[in-house]
């Protein structure tokens, strides 16, 4: 398989499996018959993203931004702890990327309890996020590359993990759960309202 073939293969992987089983072969044939420009690749990638958002399973919608959030946060903050400005910008992006899919998921499936729980968990993670940042922020005092080890030992029972458990994790988690539930409920309500209006 040449470079073009590999690119087409990866572009098609953006689409959900169910969609690929229906249209994948003909889209692949179409892409092979044309020049694969940057514009074409972007168009196909965008189409795949839209299909995944509208037809994928809840975890398929939520997992990519969640993974990106975790990776970017850990890598970036380990290499160079955030300044306040970057931290706030990053937190805002995280809100949009994580709460957005929660609302989108419940918009698509208003009766899906799993999607609502997913939204709640996502928002919970964002609220807990400052704790992770706080712990990571201390890494500049010592060796930055030991950050992950530090986080592990701290949360594993050493340091002030127990004190933090209540004030910095359980309360924010509960608040996050509520916010997540609201964002999921927002998506579901918007969809139900649209359907009710549409029926009239």
């Amino acid at each position, binding site marked *: 398989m040449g470079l073009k073939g590999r690119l087409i293969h990866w572009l098609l992987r953006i689409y959900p499996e169910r969609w690929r089983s229906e249209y994948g072969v003909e889209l692949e044939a*179409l892409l092979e018959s044309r020049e694969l420009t940057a514009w074409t690749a972007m168009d196909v990638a965008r189409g795949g993203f839209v299909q995944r958002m509208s037809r994928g399973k809840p975890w398929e919608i939520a997992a990519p931004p969640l993974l990106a959030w975790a990776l970017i946060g850990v890598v970036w903050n380990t290499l160079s702890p955030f300044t306040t400005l970057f931290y706030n910008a990053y937190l805002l992006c995280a809100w949009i990327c994580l709460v957005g899919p929660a609302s989108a998921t419940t918009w698509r499936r208003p009766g899906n309890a799993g999607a609502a729980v997913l939204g709640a968990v996502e928002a919970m993670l964002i609220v807990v996020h400052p704790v992770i940042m706080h712990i990571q922020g201390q890494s500049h005092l010592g060796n930055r590359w030991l950050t992950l080890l530090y986080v592990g030992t701290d949360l594993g029972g050493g340091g002030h993990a127990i004190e933090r458990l209540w004030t910095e994790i359980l309360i924010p988690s509960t608040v996050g759960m509520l916010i997540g539930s609201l964002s999921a409920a927002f998506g579901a309500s918007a969809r139900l309202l649209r359907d009710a209006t549409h029926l009239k």
Partner: protein
Amino acid sequence: MARKSTGGPASDPELLILSSLIEGPKHGYAMMEDIAAETGVELGPGTLYGAITRLVENGWVEPVEEIGRQRPYRLTARGSEYLREQLESVQRLARVGLRRLRTQWG
């Protein structure tokens, strides 16, 4: 994502595909070529197949027997009815708009 878009309903991928299929069944590549030649709008493959997916789900087009790895689609009766409604709506709007433009702006 449609290139060289003229904007508005004339560049709507679904209407472009339905219009292209009036003449008979076509596969994806043939639709793209036909649309580009007739309207100047270049539909990207992702946009094309996104629209085809919606059209099939709505029952406005349906696949016919595959030719190799390409699968042609044809317009259904419901699809032609929908297309007629949309085009008549555009035609009404165009008629009114053009008349008013002539009256007000000469």
